[in-house]
């Protein structure tokens, strides 16, 4: 383009600066300032903000609820990764490899919960788990397993595992599509070569499909881990609010409770720093673990 340097920089500034200012105010500044707040004792009113050094961090390490919240987050991460990946992989293979004519219908249906509001999902599933009216208990009674019925979300043992199913229910669709995209890119000749070598369908899946969609599997696992660590508290907040007796609190819901219900904003920010650190470490470790030679046939 024919234009002077000055004009170019003016245009560049026009394009970049307003957006960057907004991004700095509403994303960068809050993140860094959260880090800063974690060194203060603060109940919200500006006069009472008091610098306390690492006191909040000492409190964090001595807070008995914190290890439980971390464990709950990882419990959700692990169960979601296993549940979603097995189901999404099964559905993706079934819908692409077998010529089922209703495949597009299933694809559209299975994806839909991915764009439903967490509030809708949470309230629907709270009903499904309802001890008196809910589908789960009525279903168990119908097949004669009365003594398996329980107040799912009201039980300290069962509340957290009960949150897994809605998360899987709402999450499968996206990963099914990701994996289907990977499978669609595998060339037919790979399967033909495997068939000539006498591989049955199961061996084909294990030795052709799986290694060739490894990049998609890796991305899916990383994505599930990141979104769970950064956002599991939303479904927790809607379905149990962290209860009963803290048995479902995850790091984010505990932060919300400390900061916005009990007005310990400094301590809340400290929990936020912990979430940031834990999720970064997890992602880096995971990328290292999932490293695998790229397969090309």
């Amino acid at each position: 383009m024919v234009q002077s340097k000055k004009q170019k920089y003016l245009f560049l500034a026009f394009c970049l600066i307003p957006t960057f200012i907004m991004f700095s105010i509403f994303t960068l500044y809050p993140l860094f300032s959260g880090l800063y707040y974690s060194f203060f004792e603060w109940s919200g009113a500006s006069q009472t903000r008091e610098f306390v050094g690492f006191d909040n961090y000492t409190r964090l390490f001595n807070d008995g609820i914190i290890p439980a919240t971390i464990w709950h987050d990882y419990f959700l991460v692990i169960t979601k990764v296993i549940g979603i990946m097995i189901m999404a992989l099964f559905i993706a293979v079934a819908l692409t490899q077998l010529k089922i004519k209703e495949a597009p219908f299933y694809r559209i249906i299975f994806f839909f919960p991915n764009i439903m509001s967490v509030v809708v999902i949470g309230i629907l599933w709270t009903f499904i788990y309802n001890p008196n009216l809910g589908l789960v208990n009525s279903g168990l009674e119908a097949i004669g397993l009365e003594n398996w019925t329980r107040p799912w979300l009201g039980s300290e043992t069962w509340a957290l595992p009960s949150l897994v199913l809605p998360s899987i229910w709402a999450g499968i669709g996206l990963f099914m599509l990701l994996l289907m995209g990977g499978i669609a890119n595998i060339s037919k000749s790979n399967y033909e070569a495997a068939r000539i070598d006498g591989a049955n369908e199961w061996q084909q899946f294990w030795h052709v499909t799986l290694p060739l969609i490894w990049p998609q599997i890796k991305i899916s696992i990383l994505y599930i881990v990141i979104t769970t660590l950064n956002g599991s508290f939303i479904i927790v907040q809607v379905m149990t609010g962290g209860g009963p007796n803290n048995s479902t609190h995850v790091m984010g819901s505990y932060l919300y409770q400390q900061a916005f219900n009990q007005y310990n904003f400094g301590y809340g920010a400290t929990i936020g720093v912990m979430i940031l650190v834990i999720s970064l470490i997890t992602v880096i470790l995971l990328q290292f673990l999932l490293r695998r030679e790229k397969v090309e046939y």
Partner: protein
Amino acid sequence: MKRTVGEMLVRSGIRLPLFLWSLAVLYPIFWMFLGAFKTNAEIYANPWGFPEQFNFDNFVTAWTDYNIDTSVFNSLIVTAVGAILCLVLAIPTAYALERIRFKGSQLLFTLYISAMMIPMVLGWIPLFFLLAQFNLLDNIFGLAIVYAISQLPFTIFVLTSFMGTIPKSLEESAAIDGMSPYGVLWKIVTPLTMSGIITVTIMNAIQFWNEYFMALIFLQSSENYTLALAIDFISNEAQYTNAWGVLFASLVFAIVPVIILYSIFQRRITKGMTEGAIKG
């Protein structure tokens, strides 16, 4: 012959779980619609079946007595303002990052993209006080700004990849004809990126319409509630008020626009989300 029987068995063995899972997805949603037409007595007596007769009382009650009218209006405003603001901020930046060579371009792009992976929950505490200082706390426009910025990295990412597919020659010839870069951006690039703009805007709009947690933090008075908050409120009160039918009716209000958008733009939405996940 034997082989085809075996194959049929395998196929039905695979079809059955697919069919069951589609029931597991559809039935709860379907049941939510049924519940909206039931009276409370029916919900208790026959929670999972059809209503005896379809009546719209729950919708009317939700709309008039439970402030759903106000919160639908608030949600519409937040969604529209958030989506438009996000575009206004993202289009010029996406264009500059994709087309203009300058020092730090890669760094800036990486900065925006890595913000997609950072847990924003840490930032919400300072953001709460920042909004209070700007008098934007408990204000739907404040929420709309927060929403717009929260989707900014994703929007920039999607738009740069769409802009990368436009041939450069069009911009070059327009510039030779004497068009200013502002004109090129507004009259050439924006129309050519329309497909990407529509995709990302639909996805942002669904996101904003559905969003719950930031609304919970940044809105306080019930006349400012978005639909998600109003529903959460009704749900928490329902154990005392027993307004289950009303709760279902308001869930229907929340989900119908999403169903409509999904049925029209299904391909765009799925494509946009998978691509976003692959890079994000």
